[in-house]
């Protein structure tokens, strides 16, 4: 491939040299006179190159051509890519939209964009301005680009099979109403989103009606609302992502068959903030994740048949808050360490199974020596129920009075859910 490109380069240079020497006509004429598809041409853009503006080159390209953008600052916006081209930045040229409008709008299949920095895409209340927007295409790659102060970073609308990899997105708004999502997918299937770093947007990654996509190795930090937010997105896989210090953590809603593995949910603080919010999620699996330092590790509402296993919950306010509307969930083989409340629920009904978890507050014994405690563990404290009904009571946390209340309730459960009990709590931590 490299060799191929090299040859292309030589052809273009030869043509260019020939063109200037013989006829002195602009090279673009020479280049475009070749029939499309015959050879793949290379367009160089930059100071002292054939083109000084990207938009000029975009008007001349045909499918499978390459645009090489040399270092410099290009004050251009509304760049429409209508052919399947490869756009490559050399030493990271800057495309400055100057708060005028969107960056690239891609309406051709299999466009490849690599090595650019796109800046200053303006906030708009009526238009979804994006640095790079894919509109009804199939295939495409966005690799190793930087986005600085953009409204939407990457926006996919009805575009399938697009790969978004190793980009860095940074935005600076502080209010939800005037900021937009870093990576935004709408009605786009088979996407791959990997290795991106998203900072300061509204939602780090937002997916709506996205199916069969894979999201991994991303790092969403300091976003105003959610690090990851997805709705109506079935059959997606999320792994090895890190969600940190986002306004409200991660929200997954109304989706089926979601797989979340090896993710880290860290330091999401606030009244309505969650490490992971599950709303109407069914038949999904959450495993090998790390929930640490969140107000709430996982909050599950109306979620059914979700397997939560091999996770670590450490130093959260609430490790798991599960509403009685959630049914047939399996919570097994998790480690619960140093959480103020392990499990909290809003009712005496419980329709989920808690089994074989490690609870650091468990004080039972294991006479049989099989690794499981002989006395069941009740993770719901009376006090957590009181707080659930009356948040102000939280000020009595760790009070002697509350500890006495908890103790009496633990001996004679009358208010806490009777069936929410771990019959065989583990004696030592699950090694993850």
């Amino acid at each position: 491939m490299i060799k191929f490109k090299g040859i292309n380069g030589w052809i273009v240079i030869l043509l260019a040299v020939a063109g200037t020497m013989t006829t002195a006509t602009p090279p673009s004429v020479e280049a475009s006179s070749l029939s499309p598809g015959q050879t793949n041409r290379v367009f160089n853009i930059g100071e002292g190159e054939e083109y000084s503006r990207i938009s000029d080159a975009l008007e001349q390209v045909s499918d499978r051509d390459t645009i090489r953008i040399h270092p410099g600052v290009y004050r251009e916006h509304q760049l429409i890519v209508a052919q399947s081209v490869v756009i490559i930045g050399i030493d990271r040229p800057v495309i400055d939209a100057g708060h005028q409008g969107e960056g690239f709008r891609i309406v051709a299949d299999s466009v490849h964009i690599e090595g650019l920095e796109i800046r200053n895409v303006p906030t708009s209340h009526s238009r979804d301005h994006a640095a790079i927007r894919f509109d009804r295409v199939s295939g495409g790659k966005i690799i190793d680009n930087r986005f600085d102060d953009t409204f939407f970073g990457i926006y996919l609308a009805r575009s399938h099979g697009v790969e978004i990899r190793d980009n860095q997105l940074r935005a600076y708004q502080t209010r939800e109403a005037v900021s937009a999502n870093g990576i935004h997918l709408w009605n786009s299937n088979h996407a791959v989103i990997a290795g991106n770093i998203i900072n300061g947007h509204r939602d780090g990654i937002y997916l709506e009606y996205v199916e069969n996509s894979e999201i991994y190795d991303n790092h969403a930090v300091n976003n105003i609302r959610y690090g990851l937010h997805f709705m109506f997105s079935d059959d997606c896989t999320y792994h090895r992502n890190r969600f940190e210090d986002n306004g409200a953590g991660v929200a997954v809603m109304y989706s089926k068959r979601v797989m979340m593995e090896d993710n880290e949910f860290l330091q999401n603080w606030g009244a309505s903030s969650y490490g992971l919010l599950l709303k109407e999620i069914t038949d999904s699996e959450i495993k090998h994740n790390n929930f640490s330092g969140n107000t709430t590790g996982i909050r599950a509402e109306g979620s059914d048949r979700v397997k939560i296993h091999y996770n670590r919950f450490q130093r959260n306010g609430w490790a798991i808050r599960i509403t009685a509307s959630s049914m047939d969930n399996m919570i097994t083989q998790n480690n619960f360490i140093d959480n103020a409340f392990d499990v909290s629920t809003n009712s005496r009904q419980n329709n989920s199974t808690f089994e074989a978890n490690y609870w650091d507050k468990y004080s039972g014994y294991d006479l049989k020596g099989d690794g499981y405690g002989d006395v069941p563990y009740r993770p719901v404290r009376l006090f957590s129920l009181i707080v659930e009904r009356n948040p102000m009571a939280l000020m009595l946390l760790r009070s002697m009075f509350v500890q006495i209340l908890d103790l009496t309730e633990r001996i004679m459960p009358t208010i806490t859910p009777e069936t929410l009990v771990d019959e065989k709590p583990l004696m030592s931590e699950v090694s993850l």
Partner: protein
Amino acid sequence: MIAKILKYQLRDVMRSKWIIAYALFFLGLTDILFRFGGDGVRVATSMMNVVLIVIPLASIILGAFYLYNTREYIEMLLCHPVKRHQLFWGMFLGLGLPLVLAFTGGVMVPFIYHGAGPEAWTAAGMLAFTGSMLTVIFVGIAYYLALRFDDRIKGLGLALVICLFFTVIYDGIILLVIYMFANYPLEKPVLALSLFNPIDLGRILLLLQFDISALMGLTGAVFRDFFGTVLGMAIALGSLLLWLFVPVYGGFRRFLYKDF
């Protein structure tokens, strides 16, 4: 003169060995927690429960006992040219100071030789501060009680009741209030209520250091907004000082005019 009395007092307290036991209790407990639990923040969190329960109880009982037991000694000294106010401060500091030193020493020494990160050090510092404040506050209350009631059964009984009231009953009342007025905005009244109990105040100040994530819910935000500001901190410290001042001053007045 205060210094002289203080010197004798300290020598007396040291001789009685229980202060050593008191220090060793905290030292041993912190050390064991370090050996089992590991990192400093966890140790400080566990010690918080102990501090909030043991210190008020120990200080108020020891304080009352001490004053009742040194009755003859006080009477003897008062026959000599010793000013009453000097004697009182000597007696007060003579017990409060060793208790504070025993506690802070016992807690801090394991932090030194086990080594702890900066986060753990702030936690330990806060713990030491709160514990010391509670010590002197409850010694002050004990002195007042011992000077108010000549009958030591009555005095000690009341000391126990007061201790129980602040550690358990008061919180029960708060919970009751929260339940009864659940439909009203309770943030400010509950904040105010917490100021009227030194143990609650100490607990909340410590909680804001440790269980920050749990407290960051709505209630937590209210408390953090209040105690996180300079004004809130000043009010919290002010009310702790008031808790120190009022009983000690009451005891002081009684001591000045008491007919021994």
